[in-house]
């Protein structure tokens, strides 16, 4: 008997244990469900973006690649790059290949203004959003059409005119008041706008233009060397040189020519693009201003695209973001720039800051907020954030 009672007691005990286990398991299941629900809400759905860019090996291109991959990891977006397409047909082909590869959106740096509608068309036909970096749309008719197009999200572009004007002011402030200007050959949208800003500066009396030289269409560094040489040896009163571009070793060539002509101290120089010997040139007092640090441009376009892909477009209309150049005007700023901006070990914004540029993580974020962030991109802002 006793044994039966013991058995019944044991069965009840087992049933009670089983119930407790069931309740605990149920609670654990609910907790897991809740946590998994929380995880899916904490991270946006995985997306894939195709980036069409001139290259990712040069200074600017490699910085863009590094930063977009970093931003992609912050926003759960896989970023694929297509480089080396220098005409519209090649860029259209790149867009088509991206569509075939199943990307959810395209970020493009179009190289030929008139070809933009063709590249956009590929995205529109695939019903995926398209955004541009580093380029606006110069053709007014195309601009009007594209800015109203359903899948065109907008673009980020630098205020080149202002940068040209600002560089001339920096040069004049450093003593370069009688200036020789080296301009790119007409036809390049960004260089034309830089020239326009510089010319405005001359007209408004910021400095006096002594002479100007227009580079050939595809210049080598020899063209900068020659023009600098001729400026220095022909215009004895000249004390400043400004250039709309210093690529392919041009700025380095101009700096070397100033040294060779023993004009250090007499002739100051400002330029776009960062010369390889900029530190030395700042130290010697040859270089007094640089307009650089524009790789964040593509991040702002990427953020516009990311918001759209996450289902939270920043605006129902196309967004145009005006991005800044960072001006480096002395050796200390050059060192700070190398440390905080042009350093492969650092990023201009943290993952958290990038996430806060999206409505997914920051529901009150707007296109105006993005513009404010872009406008704040200055050396002093970089330093202030670095010190935090």
């Amino acid at each position, binding site marked *: 008997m006793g044994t039966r009672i013991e058995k019944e007691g044991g069965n009840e005990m087992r049933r009670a244990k089983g119930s407790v286990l069931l309740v605990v398991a149920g609670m654990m299941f609910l907790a897991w469900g809740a946590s998994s629900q929380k995880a899916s809400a904490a991270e946006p759905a995985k997306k894939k973006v195709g980036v069409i860019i001139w290259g990712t090996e040069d200074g600017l291109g490699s910085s863009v690649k590094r930063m977009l991959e970093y931003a992609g990891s912050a926003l759960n977006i896989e970023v694929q790059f297509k480089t080396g397409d220098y005409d519209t047909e090649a860029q259209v082909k790149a867009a088509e290949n991206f569509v075939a590869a199943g990307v959810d959106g395209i970020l493009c740096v179009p190289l030929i203004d008139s070809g933009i509608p063709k590249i956009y068309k590929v995205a529109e036909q695939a019903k995926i959003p398209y955004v541009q970096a580093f380029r606006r749309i110069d053709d007014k008719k195309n601009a009007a059409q594209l800015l109203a197009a359903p899948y065109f999200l907008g673009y980020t572009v630098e205020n080149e005119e202002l940068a040209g004007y600002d560089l001339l002011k920096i040069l004049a402030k450093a003593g370069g008041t009688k200036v020789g200007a080296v301009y790119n050959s*007409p036809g390049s949208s960004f260089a034309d706008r830089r020239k326009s800003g510089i010319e405005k500066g001359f007209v408004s009396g910021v400095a006096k233009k002594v002479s100007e030289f227009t580079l050939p269409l595809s210049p080598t560094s020899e063209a900068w060397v020659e023009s600098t040489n001729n400026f220095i040896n022909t215009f004895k009163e000249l004390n400043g040189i400004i250039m709309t571009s210093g690529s392919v070793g041009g700025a380095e060539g101009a700096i070397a020519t100033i040294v060779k002509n023993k004009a250090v101290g007499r002739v100051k120089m400002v330029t776009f693009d960062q010369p390889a010997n900029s530190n030395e040139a700042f130290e010697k007092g040859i270089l007094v201003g640089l307009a650089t640090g524009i790789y964040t441009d593509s991040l702002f376009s990427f953020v516009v695209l990311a918001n759209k892909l996450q289902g939270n477009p920043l605006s129902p209309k196309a967004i145009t973001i005006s991005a800044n150049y960072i001006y480096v005007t002395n050796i200390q700023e050059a060192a700070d720039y190398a440390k905080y901006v042009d350093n492969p070990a650092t990023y201009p914004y943290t993952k958290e800051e990038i996430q806060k540029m999206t409505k997914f993580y920051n529901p009150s974020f707007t296109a105006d907020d993005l513009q404010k962030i872009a406008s704040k991109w200055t050396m002093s802002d970089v330093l202030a954030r670095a010190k935090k």
Partner: protein
Amino acid sequence: MKSLILLGKKVLLAVAIPALLFIAVRLLFPSRINLSLLLVLLMQAIPPAILAWGVCFEIKVSLWDFSVGAITLVSGIVGAGVAEMLHLGIWGIVALCTLSGLLIGLSTGVIFSLLKIPSIIVSIGIMLILESVSGLIFKGQGVIVSSDIFKLASFPLNLVIGFVAFALAYYIYNYRRLGFHVRAVGNGITVARLNGINVDNVRILCFTVTGMFAGVFSFMQLAGSAVMKAQNNMTTMGVVVDAIICACIALSLEGVANLIVGVFIGSVTIQILKIGILVSGFPSMYQQVVVAIFLLIFMGLSSRSDLIHSAWARLRSPTAGRA
């Protein structure tokens, strides 16, 4: 005595163009142009002349080579890059750039000879390949060398390099079999072939010589900036234009000056023309147009010198025409 007078006359005629041009610019802009500037222009004329000394071998045998700029680019990046890796210093750069240019030129020549297609097509193909190569080697970063290299483009080393390049070009063109063959092929391929000259070999060697001078030009270019960056999209094609202009002027002057001497005269002329445009305030974006117009006028005048001579003769004796 007669030969001395003839030589003097030839020298005067050869230097007349740059001399008159310089005097004209000096008279027009006396406050800007002075004699010390002439020295600067002569130094500045050295690098383009080096390239043109190579290019004139090709032009003489009717080869059109648009890969010269790309050869300059790749030989500069490869030569300087390898020399930097091996810590060979600036003389290592000089040697390796020249060698790279020579080997690339030789390869171009061999490809041209094997494919039997027009040189202009082969050279454009080679240019595209080389530009792509410039974007691949050293991770597409190009090359940055120490500022020690600046001394190569500064006095007196630039003068020494220019003189050595001139002497080499002069020696090959005037005293080596290749030079004779180049002139023979230039005067007529069929006749040259009938005389037993292997035209294909001559052309391969012309590509090689041009490549070698492009290699020399590449380290001179590096000596101007210490940087050579990868290029693409046919941007190197323009490099050869100035060299072709110098070579064309030299060809026009061949009656009074040796081709190699004429190239340097052409290079100096272009520099004077450029400085004239700069000081005149004429929009420099039209510089190439002005140079092209000058070239057309100059070549037109030299190719129709018979008309000028007969006009001159008529002016000197007005009755001669009526007789």
